[in-house]
Each structure stands twice: as C-alpha cells, then as structure tokens.
C-alpha cells in the first residue's frame, strides 16, 4: 500500500531538493553505518519530502541538545518494506519507522523489535494515547510508538455535490440512489483505480466492516474464518450489485489511485474511497472543495467501525545504541515535535494533547474518530503479508470479473489454509 507516497509528488513539485541532491552526490558510496555508542542511526521511509525535512530538523535539534550524533537515512517507501527484513537482522539502525498492528507483530514475534514498555511507563504515554496504544501493544508490552494515522472515508468535492444536488449517502439505499443520480449527471459514482491492487481491498474492508463488523473482519484477517464462509456472501453480493450497476470507473485496472483521484478532481466522478492523501491529486486552488463523509451504513445494528491505518516508530532489538534511541524517541514524541512532524502529511495525531491542526481535513478526521466504535488498519496491514498479496489480486479480479467470485474465493481459501497451516 502506497498511500504515503502520494504527497511526495505534491511536495516535490513545490519543493526544490537541490541542496540535498548535491550533498548526496558528494557523499559517494553509501557506507554501511557503523554505529558507535554515541551515535543514533535512524532509517525512515518518508515519501513526503517536507516530512523528511522536519524529521531531519528534529534530529538536528536532538543532536545539539543531547550531544549525540544522529544520522537519518531516508529510504524509498515501497523498498523499505522488503529491505527492513534484511536490516533488522543484519545491520540494524537504532530507530526505524514501520506500521503498527499486525505488521509490527510479525517482527515482535521474531524478537526483532525491542520492548519499550519502560519508556511508556516513564513518560506516561498510556494517558495521552488512549486507544491507539493498543496498536503497538503485544501481550501487555509496548514495542513502538504510534506516529500518525490515516482515516479512510468517502472523499468528494463540495462544489460538484452542490452543482448536481447530491448529498453524501448515509445508508445503502441512499448510496444506490446517489449512484443513479451521478450516472444521470454523467459522473462515475465512485472513482476507482486498481492498478496498484490495494484500493480494491480497501473497498472490501469497508463493506465487510459495515456488513459483518469488526470481530468477524478480524477473524478473517487472522485466518480464523474461511474465505468461502457464508458470512462473506452478502459482502460480495452488495459489491457485485455496485459493479453490475456501473458504480466504478470503467477499466479501473488501467489506473493508479492518483489517476482515479484525478477523475475526482476533474469533476468526472462523484466520490472516492481513500485517505486524506487524495489531496495529492488536487490542484492547490481546488483543495478547499475537498471533504469527506464516512462510508454509508449498511447494517444499522452494527457499531461504527472504520479503517484507520496507524504508522509507528520502533527500536530494533539488534540496535547498538538502545539508550540513545530511547532518548531520541522521547524527544521526537514531545507534542510540539510530533505535531510538526505530522503537519506536512496531514496525518491524524495519535496523542490527544496536541494543538488543533491548521488542516480542516485533519480536524474533521479527529472529530470523526471520536464517534468510532473500533478500527481496523487496512487489509494488507491486518492480515499476513503473503495472504495479503493473494487477497489484493483476488479483489482486483473480482472487481473486473465478478462472475468468477467462486473460483477466486476458493483460491483465496486455499491460500489461507496453506498460510495459517490448517
């Protein structure tokens, strides 16, 4: 999943990295960091250049204050996902950024992330984090700090809605009616680009949360429920209904989410299921038009569960300077530093004691989260990565060829049985 990459395009366009490129050029061969105990090395994977800049600044401040040298290596967001498996074992940094929840747990169970419950206790993080602390907790111990989150929802343009007299659908019936209205106004009801696979899985998550609720969704994510289970049937029935009625962008497998986002920005689509990072597809002057509503309710009897992906920061178990890393984390996690770090990307703060953001979308997300009964992170963060790869492909295929539902689900079920050793 690439939803952090986006803003890179936006910021790179406005932000000249000239100096960074020159200094990088002069450094020549990258030398594997041989950390001395007085040094803290950090690997980050910020695709937003402004966020990376803030992180460097925070690191520089820390270096000045603590007298400890800090080295920040910023890697490509996608590449980091495979590289981390190498560097956690051989050549671990002292601090690294990752994803909370199941993806973190995979490394915790292998003993690759350090237990930082002591920091939690000392800094009393439990008091300011609330529910988000759970995403970094395994068996009562904390293995990282949540950094910032993305709340998923249905994004749309206010002016398009006004022009066509549309309102954000709150129920399934309203959603279907919304689609009809869009189509008669020559709008694609829902912009969708599945070239990068994951947007289809996001749609699946939303539908499953609305129809089956959080517990059953997690049963599926944890491999405890079959993909052929009857429980999932209404999810695919509803989804198929939308597909058959032409709710989604035609040829969606040809487009990345950015191109699909452009359809929304160009007033050619009604809504789009994404995080606030969809703004990257919008020209600056159109941003005030962008807003979002929660995914429509399908079953009134269920609590409101939302998709909320939470990133995190960790100390590898093989880090050489764990005390320095702890000091750095404490510094990084000060409200003013964390707020500065989150601002460029428009991510939702995990701490409840940060000042209100200047970004209306962030504040709307914070408000919206208050009414939420529980959250999942995202399909490819909540389930086994091997399962996720198969699932992403399966959902894309379902969106293009709904008639193959049974074959796809059989296949996914086979994959589940293999992975969870059933």
């Amino acid at each position: 999943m690439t939803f952090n990459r986006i803003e890179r395009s936006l910021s790179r366009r406005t932000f000249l990295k000239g100096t960074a490129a020159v200094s990088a050029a002069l450094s020549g061969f990258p030398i594997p960091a041989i950390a001395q105990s007085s040094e803290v090395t950090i690997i980050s994977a910020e695709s937003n250049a402004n966020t990376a800049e803030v992180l460097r600044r925070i690191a520089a401040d820390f270096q000045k204050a603590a007298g400890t040298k800090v080295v920040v290596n910023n890697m490509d967001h996608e590449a980091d996902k495979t590289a981390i498996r190498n560097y956690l074992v051989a050549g671990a940094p002292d601090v690294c950024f990752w994803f909370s929840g199941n993806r973190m747990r995979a490394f915790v169970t292998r003993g690759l992330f350090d237990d930082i419950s002591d920091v939690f206790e000392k800094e009393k993080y439990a008091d300011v984090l609330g529910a988000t602390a759970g995403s970094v907790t395994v068996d009562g111990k904390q293995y990282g700090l949540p950094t910032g989150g993305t709340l998923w929802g249905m994004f749309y343009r206010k002016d398009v809605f006004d022009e066509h007299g549309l309102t954000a659908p709150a129920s399934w019936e309203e959603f279907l009616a919304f689609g009809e209205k869009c189509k008669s106004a020559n709008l694609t009801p829902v912009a969708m680009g599945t070239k990068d696979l994951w947007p289809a899985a996001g749609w699946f998550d939303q539908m499953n949360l609305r129809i089956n609720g959080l517990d059953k969704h997690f049963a599926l994510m944890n491999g405890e429920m079959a993909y052929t289970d009857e429980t999932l049937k209404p999810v695919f029935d509803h989804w198929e209904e939308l597909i058959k009625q032409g709710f989604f962008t035609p040829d969606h497998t040809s487009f990345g989410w950015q191109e699909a986002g452009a359809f929304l920005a160009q007033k050619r689509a009604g809504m789009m299921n994404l995080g606030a990072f969809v703004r990257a597809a919008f020209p600056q002057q159109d941003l005030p038009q962008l807003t979002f509503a929660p995914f429509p309710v399908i079953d009134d009897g269920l609590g409101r569960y939302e998709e909320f992906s939470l990133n995190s920061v960790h100390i590898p178990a093989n880090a050489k300077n764990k005390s320095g890393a702890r000091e750095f984390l404490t510094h990084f996690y000060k409200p003013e530093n964390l707020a500065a770090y989150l601002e460029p990307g428009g991510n939702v703060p995990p701490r409840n004691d940060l000042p209100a953001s200047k970004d209306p979308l962030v504040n709307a997300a914070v408000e919206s989260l208050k009414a939420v009964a529980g959250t999942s992170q995202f399909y490819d963060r909540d389930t086994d990565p091997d399962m996720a790869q198969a699932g992403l492909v399966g959902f894309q295929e379902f969106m293009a060829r709904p008639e193959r539902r049974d074959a796809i689900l059989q296949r996914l079920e086979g994959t589940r049985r293999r992975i969870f050793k059933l």
Partner: protein
Amino acid sequence: MYPRPVPETAHASRRLYMTLVGAILIVWLAPLFAVILTSFRSMADVMSGNLWGWPTEIAVVENYTAVFTQTPMARYFLNSLVITIPSVVGVLILSTLAGFVLARYRFPGNMLIFALFVGGNFLPHQIMMIPVRDLMVRLNLYDTTTALIIFHVAFQTGFATLFMRNFIAALPDELFQAARAEGATPFQTLIHVVVPLVRPALAALAILLFTFIWNDYFWAVVLTVSDDVKPVTAGLANLRGEWVSAWNLISAGTIIVAVPPVVMFFLMQKHFIAGLTMGAVKG
C-alpha cells in the same frame, strides 16, 4: 549484393525507394517521436489533455530542469555511471585474461570451463536472485553500488570471455609461436602480443557491456533500495509512481535514461555492430 541494388542511374526510383523507406522509418520510430514531443510539452497542455495537438508552448527547458532539480534523477544518473563504468572495466580485464587462457592453452577441462561460461550466460536471472541477494546482505553490501558492480562483473564475464576467447583464438598462430621462440613468458605474451591486438575487440565489447549494464533493471530492483544507490532504470520506474499523470516529466525522464546508450551507439556504431555480429558472422 542482395537484394539487387536500385541502379544508380535511376534517380526517380532511388528517390521513390528512399521515400518508402523513410515512411516506414517514421512508423517504426513513432512511439519514440511521441515521447520526445511530449517531453517538450508544458504542464498546462498535459493537464488540459492536449497530448497530441500542437503544443501551446515549448517547455523543454522547464521540463528537463524540473526532472533534474525536483526529482532525484540527477542522482540516479550519477549512480548509473558509478555502477556502469567500473563494471565495464572490470569485465574487460577479467575476460581478456580468461579468454587468453582458454584460447591459447590446452588443458583438461578447458572445454568444460568454456561451456560453463557460455551456458551460465544464458541462465535466467531469477535462478540466482535469492542467493545473490542473500550473499550481498551477508557481505553487508546490500543496497550499495558495489553489490551491483560485483554482480555485473561476475555475470558479464561469462559472455565477455566467450567473446574474447573467440577473438584471441582467431589471431594468427605464428605470432604466438614467435613469442614462444623468443622465450616470452605467458604473461609477457599477453601484454606484448595479445593486448595490442585485441583493442578493437575491447572497444566493441566495451560499448556492448555499457549498454547491457546501463539498461539493467532487474538487478537494480533486487539489490538496491535507496535513492543514493539506485540507477536510472529503477529510478525511472520510481518516478512513474510519483508523477503519475505528469507525462511530460516522465517522458523527459525516459529520454534521459535512453540518451547515454543511444549516444554511445552513434559514436561507436561500427564497434557496436561488429561486436554484436562477431559470433554470427564468424560461422
């Protein structure tokens, strides 16, 4: 000559023939022209969907400046040079040595070693992917240009040795007999007889290797992750993820990736073609 030459006196048919060939050439290179043209287009044109009409303004300077200043393309370009040049030099040295021995010394296993070099050269890259990646991780070289250099030198040595061996084997025997008669050591023979004579082969090989290594994408993806190490090919793929609809910038990036091999080719065309066809024509 086949086909029969169009007679030199038939000016009209000659002109007609060239027009026909020119027309085919334009179709042949149409995709390339399209990309070049697009790299000249302004963002305004691209945003408004004017991708094939006449550009409202020529933004060639802006686009290429943008690629070099707002994306890490300059860095990727430098990385590609840092990877390609030492690799080519390394392969040339190793393959001259190995090719000389295989061409001029009969020993048990000579043919076997030769066959392994040739056969290994045809292996699918994927069969080595996991162990090579693992090896680089263990050597603490993963995500360094050194890792790519080591791999390229190792792999291309197979092809290059075949090439040099054939070339050295075709040198006149008398030269080597004379050297032996004068009591030259094998090393002296190599330096004073072989090296001066294989220069054209080295030139041909160098340009071929440059193209192969510069254009490599698979190993760039497998062995590198950070922007400080990535060559242009992997960099271009990255760029596409970030600049999805900025066709003009992607096109400019594509041209930047394509230019060095094309320039090398035009500068050293004779050597390039001689190199490619050496095996084929030798018979």
